[in-house]
Each structure stands twice: as C-alpha cells, then as structure tokens.
C-alpha cells in the first residue's frame, strides 16, 4: 500500500444498496402527479431523478416525499417479505 | 575562557548590556555567549546575566560560578546579593558607583555611569541608559576592542549621545 492517507473516492453505493433499509416503499400515482417536483426537492438522499423517477435501489423509505406531496400522488406501501 | 557575571535590576538594561559585550567580543573574532538568567524578574528586581568569551567554541550553558569579572550595574544591589560569590582570587569588579566604591581584595573599577547618562539626558522610560557607557568602560579594560565597541553602539543606537557616553566612561575609568 502506497497511499499516505485514507482518501475515499466518490461512487454510488458507498453505503451499500440502502434500498434494503425500507419498510415502506413510495409509489407514485401518475394520474394525480402534477410534476411540481417537491418530492425531489425534499428527498434527503437525492434518490428521485429530474424526471421524478424514484431509485428504489437507494430510497430509504423515509416517506418525506409522500408527506410533502401537495397532490397526495405518493403513497407509502408496505414492502413484502 | 573569560567569564563575566553581570548584576543589575530589571529595567536597567543588564540583559541587553550582556548581549552587547558578547557581540563586541564576537566582532573581535572571538567566540562569545550571553545568557540572561530568567526567573520571575520584574522591573526593579535583581537580575543576573552571564557572558563568556573564548578563542574556542563555548560548550557551557550552566551559570558562571567563578567569574573573572563581576559587573555591578546598580551599587545598591550589593546590599541584597553577594555579588562576589565565587569570584576568582584574581577576579576584578566593575561597579557603577557614585562614590568610587572599592571592594577589598579585588581590583575594583568604579565609574559613575548613571551620572554620565543623566548629564547627557540619556533616559529611557525613566531609567538612565547604562549599557552604552558600560561598553566604553569595558573597552577601556581591554576586554573588547575600541573598534568593536564603537561598531556595537553605532549598530544598536541611533542617538549620537550614546557614543559620547561611551567615550566619557572610557576616559573616566582609571587603569
């Protein structure tokens, strides 16, 4: 090992696939969604893309998106075992 | 090695005087060290400095126990401190003295440095400047050369009166 200091390099999945942390999963009802983007704005983990697609590999299921959605277009669904 | 112990009071410039004497010796081509003995000295408290002059590099850092010369910048200190402690039998004493104080058993050189400075109005922060006339006196004693004494004063003090003070002390000291 020649590195003098632990320098971590950026990459997705640094904390593993955090999608496995979820108990509840957000689901979008595209009928109700008005593309306001608040869900993406408030997602702490930037797991919602510009096109408002939720990356379920990483979404931790906090539920902020559903809570803050003004159109109630998001619902938290219990993950099945 | 020639060892000098210098007694003064805080604020009288004793620490600077020791550096200037050592610096003059350095200019003479000698090895020299000047060491202040620091404690919790404050203005007015007795202070001791040491000067060593030699033809060889000086390897000693401890205090001077057996001086060849004792310099007393303030006569009144002799009431408080045994300035002759450990002085060599042939050791000499220089005293800044108004009344020509002599020390028994040792060659004594009394010069009134204070009056010289006061007569030239050489006063800094309320204290008469003693180290420039002292340099003149030490040069007269042959411990440092006249040229080096002049250079040290010229490099250290801008005021011409310092040169005059050194010259007067040089003249007043009787060998």
């Amino acid at each position, binding site marked *: *090992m*020649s*590195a*003098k*200091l*632990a*320098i*971590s*390099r*950026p990459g997705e999945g640094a904390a593993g696939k955090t999608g496995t942390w979820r108990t509840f999963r957000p689901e979008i009802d595209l009928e109700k969604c008005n593309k306001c983007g608040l869900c993406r704005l408030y997602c702490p983990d930037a797991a919602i893309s510009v096109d408002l697609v939720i990356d379920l590999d990483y979404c931790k299921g906090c539920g902020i998106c559903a809570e803050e959605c003004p159109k109630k277009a998001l619902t938290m669904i219990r993950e099945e075992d | 090695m020639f060892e000098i112990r210098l007694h003064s009071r805080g604020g009288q410039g004793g620490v600077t005087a*020791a*550096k200037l004497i*050592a*610096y003059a010796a*350095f200019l003479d081509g000698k*090895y*020299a*060290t*000047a*060491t*202040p003995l*620091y404690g919790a000295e404050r203005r007015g408290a007795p202070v001791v400095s040491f000067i060593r002059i030699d033809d060889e*590099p*000086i*390897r*000693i*850092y*401890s*205090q001077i*126990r057996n001086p060849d010369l004792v310099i007393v910048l303030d006569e009144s200190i002799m009431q408080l401190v045994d300035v002759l402690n450990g002085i060599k039998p042939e050791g000499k004493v220089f005293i800044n003295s108004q009344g020509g104080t002599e020390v028994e058993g040792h060659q004594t050189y009394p010069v009134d440095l204070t009056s010289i400075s006061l007569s030239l109005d050489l006063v800094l922060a309320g204290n008469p400047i003693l180290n420039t006339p002292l340099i003149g006196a030490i040069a007269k004693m042959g411990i440092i050369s006249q040229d080096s004494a002049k250079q040290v004063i010229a490099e250290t003090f801008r005021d011409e009166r310092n040169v005059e003070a050194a010259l007067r002390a040089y003249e007043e000291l009787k060998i």
Partner: protein
Amino acid sequence: MLTFGTGNKAVAMAVRDAKPVVVAAYPITPQTEIVEEIANFVTEGSLAARYIPVESEHSSMAACIGAAATGVRTFTATSSHGLVYMCEMMHMSAGARLPIVMANANRALGPGWNIGAEHSDSISMRDTGWLQVYVSTVQEAYDATLMAFRIAEHTDVLLPVMINLDGFLLTHITQTFETVEPGDFIPPIATPHAIDINNPGGYGTLTPGNTHFKFRHDIERGMQASIPVIVETEAEFSRRFGREYHLYEEYRCEDADVVIIAMGTLGKEMEVAVDILREEGTRAGAIRMRWFRPFITPELNGKDVVVIDRDYSFGYGGVLAGELQAKSGCQPFSVIAGLGGQEVTYDDIAEFVRIRRPGTEHWFGVDD
C-alpha cells in the same frame, strides 16, 4: 552570513530562509521570540508568508494541517503547555502525513508554574508519529530547522518534524551562527496526497480496522525511511554549507570505558565533563543523541553507560535511559537531572560518572 543572536532568532531566520507559505502560531514563553521575529519578517516583507495569529496551540496545529493539506509548506512553534494542548492535532498531523515543521522550546509542565528547560513536553509526544530532533547550539538550531523541511517533505518520509531546543538555555542564549542561502537545498514541496479539486475525495474518511492498521504501518515505514533521508540530508548539508551533523554525535568515544548520553544543551556541556574526567585518568566519552524519533541506537560495545534524562516517565523511569536499555541491552546508570531548568553543570556531570552504579536510578539533587 555570520551573525549573532539567540536560539529563537536562529530558528526564525531559518524559517525565513526556508520560505513557508503559511505560519500559524500562538505565543508562549520561552518560544515567543520565534513568532515575534517571524511576524516581523512577514510585516517587513522579507518572508512572503501568510502569518495566522491563531487563538490557541490546538488551532495553530489545526491551521497548519489545513494549509499543509493543500500542499503548501507550513511552520509553527510552541512550548510546554502549548505542545501538550495541541496533542490531539499532533496525532492528526502525523496521521494525515503532513510535512509540517515545528520548533519546540523545551519547558517544564505545571504545576507548579515553571518556565525552565525540561524535555517532558516533547517526550510525551513520542508516540504521535512526529520526528524529533534535539539541538544543542544556536547554529544547530538554525541548521536543523532548515534540514527539517527537506526531511519532512521528502516523499519517502512525509511526516512532520519537531526541532527541540532547551528553553532559555538555548532559546535565549546569544551565540555566533552562520546563515546560508539554501538555494535548491530544500526542493519545492510536492505532497502527493494534497487536496485536488479536480479529483474529489474524502480525506481521512471512516476507515475500517483491517485497512486502518495499514495506514498506521505506513507511518512506521515513513519513520524507518526517514533514517537514510536524514543521513543523506545531513551529508548534503555538509557538502553545501560545510557543517557536519550525524544521527548522534560522539565525543572522545573511541577508547572510552564509560560514555555519558544526553540530549540538548546537557549533551554539549557534558563534553567539558569528559575533558575533566580524562584529565583525572578516567577514559570517558560522550554521545549526544540528536534524533529521538526515529530512535537510533548508538554503538555502545559493552561500555559503561551514564544516561542523563531531562524528563521522566512516572512509574517507569528516565525515558532515554529506558529506551537505550531496551534497544541496546546496556544497564545504564540513569540520572534524572535538570528538570524545570534545574542547574546542572559540567562538574555535576563529571560527578555522575564518578558515582555511577550501573542499573540504578539517581535523581540529582534528591538522592545526594
């Protein structure tokens, strides 16, 4: 240029000549003159550095870390309580492999308050990963400071270096010394792990145990690699500037039956004791340890050994004596002397040799 000044001034002038980009420091007796002189150099323009007047020693080392992390040359200075106050950052700076150079004016720790020379401050930093050199003249203070930058920044080393000089005894003594034009003696700094905006990374991130120990091991590799770098640097210094230094300095050791070992100013004064003992018919010699980290074991060849420690590890013993014993197998007469600036003369040192009892400990001024 031949000049005349104190140990503190010599360090400051060496720093000026080494041209650091950032100096962050906090004043403490008896180091103060170093930072005052450097502040003067910066103000008058003879040193084009950023001087950061920090609010504590913890922050002086922290600021040096921040600056050195960007890949620039840095310097700080401290003493005693200041050094132990920055202890956390001592570990951080060495752990981050930042080649910071620091002067430490060795001074006792309270209570009671004491500003005299003692090595307990720097000795207590021995396990941080800092290189430590102890100097014994004003000239050596200047030379060792210049060399410290070259050693610390060497890509085989990349560890910080501390130059230790005895408080007052060396910081405040005025002696002759010669400054040099370093030229390319200190090559431009090139820290391979400096922050690179174009190659983002998490510096010093969470590191699991099975990786962490590899970085720790690499610190030791740097330490070991520093030995040839020190030898090479001192040889190059001698070639260019004419003054010779070694890992440790021997004095009249060739035929000696007994050697005195010490660091700092006592390591110079003891040469006078050796001369006195020789005149008495005792074949004495002296070894002045310069580098305490990395620890370099001198050749003792079965000689009687008298070690003077200006430090103490409570519940253990004199640190230098203990390390020499562990590394060389000698049974030293361990003298503890000079703590808190206690006056120790060449006569006292000669007496240590006369009364020596190998394998025992002697507290000067206590056990008499």
